[in-house]
């Protein structure tokens, strides 16, 4: 009797397993591993499992995704790619060009992605006019984070332009605070430079320089001006910044050691975690000189070609889920970003996110929406690497010449296009 019971149980288990198999599994490679991000991914997992599919988590932490990319390459080359992987920007095109990605057009059509997504976002997610990836969120990179308490103590005005910035920095320094908190690593230097470049070039020349890689603009007078301002900013950060991470810099603003930080809106997560409220404990406004411009960074999942029919169904379900209002809301509130769909209510979001959405809508209407090159949204890794080298070397060399740097930038970008 016992034997019979046991085998029945085993049989039931088998059936359950095979049924789950019949419903398909999605394996998702990502590096959303920090507190808020991990929670956000958990939501996606739960929603997918509620529909009966299986979620196989494949999180590879470390190196801003470079560790994950190494794993992904090995898996893809050996013919066993995951269903979805966190790939963004032009890398999507590179993977698609190699023939690894699947076509999501049927899902896109059923879910009306063409109506829900802004044109620039559609373009990034498509290869030769076909959807190959699904966006999860929109980050704005050109933010200035401000501790108003420090400004009050230093009797300084919150800046909207670079001249105002330098005037305020002088007062803040005199009052014994650090004007700008900065994480001094190549990535951080490039993120800061992007804000400066966007303010000096404006969206059109920015696109020409960093998307079309136009040599004339790259070494033009506006770029020289950007480097000049960038160099001047170096005097307003503390000498101890090299090697610091961006979130440590954010904490300097939170603790009132520093007055400002220029960083994307993932910095908000740090403020939230410290129990700070936007508008009261801290302010978020566009980086100096970039009012109305929106430098965007989109996290997305690229979908790989699979063989198993059930798994393909699960993959489609995942793709459809990612643009559902519920996921968009929960994920983006956890991550500090805004929904990629512009038709959703922003009621439950905080003031910064609401401002971000407003700017996003306005910028996509005026053509002032630009892809963030510092966050790998505009160029291949090779080109970005060359830009990063020039920018970080310039920023850390006290004797560097802005004119020479602009020329080096043009040469370096050209040499990356082999």
């Amino acid at each position, binding site marked *: 009797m016992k034997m019979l019971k046991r085998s029945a149980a085993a049989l039931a288990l088998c059936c359950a397993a095979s049924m789950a198999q019949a419903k398909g599994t999605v394996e998702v490679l990502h590096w959303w591993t920090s507190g808020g991000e991990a929670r956000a991914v958990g939501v996606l997992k739960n929603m997918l499992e509620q529909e009966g599919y299986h979620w196989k988590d494949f999180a590879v932490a470390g*190196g801003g995704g*470079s560790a994950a*990319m*190494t794993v992904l*390459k090995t898996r893809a*080359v050996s013919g066993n790619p995951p269903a979805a992987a966190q790939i963004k920007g032009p890398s999507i095109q*590179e993977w698609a060009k*190699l023939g690894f990605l699947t076509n999501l057009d049927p899902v896109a059509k059923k879910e009306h992605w063409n109506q829900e997504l802004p044109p620039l976002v559609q373009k990034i997610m498509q290869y030769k006019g076909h959807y190959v990836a699904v966006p999860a969120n929109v980050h704005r990179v050109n933010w200035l984070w401000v501790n108003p308490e420090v400004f009050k103590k230093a009797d300084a005005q919150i800046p909207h332009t670079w001249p105002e910035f330098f005037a305020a920095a002088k007062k803040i320094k005199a009052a014994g605070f650090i004007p700008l908190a900065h994480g*001094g*690593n*190549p990535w951080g*230097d490039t993120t800061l430079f992007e804000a400066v470049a966007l303010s000096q070039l404006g969206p059109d020349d920015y696109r020409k320089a960093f998307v079309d890689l136009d040599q004339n603009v790259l070494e033009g007078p506006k770029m020289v001006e950007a480097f000049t301002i960038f160099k001047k900013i170096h005097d307003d950060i*503390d*000498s*101890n*910044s*090299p*090697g610091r991470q961006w979130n440590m810099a954010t904490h300097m603003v939170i603790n009132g050691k520093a007055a400002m930080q220029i960083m994307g809106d993932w910095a908000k997560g740090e403020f939230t975690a410290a129990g700070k409220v936007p508008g009261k404990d801290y302010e978020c406004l566009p980086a100096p000189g970039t009012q109305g411009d929106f430098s965007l960074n989109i996290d997305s999942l690229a979908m790989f070609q699979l063989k198993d029919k059930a798994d393909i169904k699960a993959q489609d379900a995942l793709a459809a889920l990612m643009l559902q209002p519920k996921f968009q809301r929960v994920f983006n509130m956890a991550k500090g970003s805004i929904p990629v769909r512009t038709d959703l209510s922003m009621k439950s979001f905080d003031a910064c996110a609401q401002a971000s959405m407003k700017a996003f809508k306005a910028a996509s209407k005026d053509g002032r929406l630009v892809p963030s090159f510092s966050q790998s949204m505009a160029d*291949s*890794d*090779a080109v*970005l*690497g060359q830009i990063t*080298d020039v920018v*970080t*070397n*310039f*920023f*850390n*060399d*006290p004797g560097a010449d802005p004119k020479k740097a602009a020329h*080096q930038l043009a040469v*370096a970008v050209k*040499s*990356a296009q*082999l």
Partner: protein
Amino acid sequence: MSTQIGVLSVPAKRPASRVINLIQAWLPKLVLAPSLALVLVGVYGYMIWTAVLSFTNSSFMPSFRFVGFAQYARLIANDRWHTACINLVIFGVLFIGVCLALGIFLAIFLDQKIRQEGFIRTVYLYPMALSLIVTGTVWRWILNPGLGLEKLMHDWGWTSFHFDWLVRSHLSVYTLVIAAVWQSSGFVMALFLAGLRGIDPSIIKAARVDGARLPTIYLRIILPCMRPVFFSAIMILAHLSIKSFDLVKVMTAGGPGYSSDLPALFMYDMSFTRGQLGLGAASAIMMLGAILALLVPYLYSELRSKRHD
């Protein structure tokens, strides 16, 4: 085992022993074969593979469109590669030189039949037991002006004290030397101490009788006797410095900017984070070439002179 005994006890002894002889002749080769194959494929095979890749336009995946020496031309035009190579020369020369000097000094002092020698020796040798990651992290904290030594001195009231090499772009490479010397000089000391112990005391006594003073004895007699020790110490330190990667990765990550970059870090960055496999392969081959150019003549002269002795 039992079958072997069975075979041995069979009256017809001749063929059995021939089998055993055959096994004895082949067994070492069989046992060595897998590791030999692994070395052939894993070291030399991939060396060739890297060389092949360096002539292609491989981006983030290997490709086989050959572009001749284009990757090498790009490499030589690359400012960061220049910085990395100059840094390697600075780092390598200082690291080897200071380690040798310190190691020899410590060894000579320890050789003066002092008390507690065993304990002191262990103290100096201990850093070698740490991983370079740990060494790098600790020294990054110590040398960080806002966290380590400089802050400590300021807190103690010595406010004019300045030691901020770690965050200065033209000095950061020297901080790597400090950490690397701290790690390895004890090991060099141990090598030389062993060498010193191997020297016949009667030579020293004879020199004393001839009226030579102690510094002269060491300089003129003992150190020249230790040529093989110099050889092994330099070999070990040289390869440590050329492959140096983990130390710079954790201590400065090549920064500020890329001012403290080293070729190994450059190679890793290009190949694995920037999707420029071709360029990374070219830099790897250049490093290999540099090692061969330096080491082959040295090895050749050292090993040949030994044969003459």
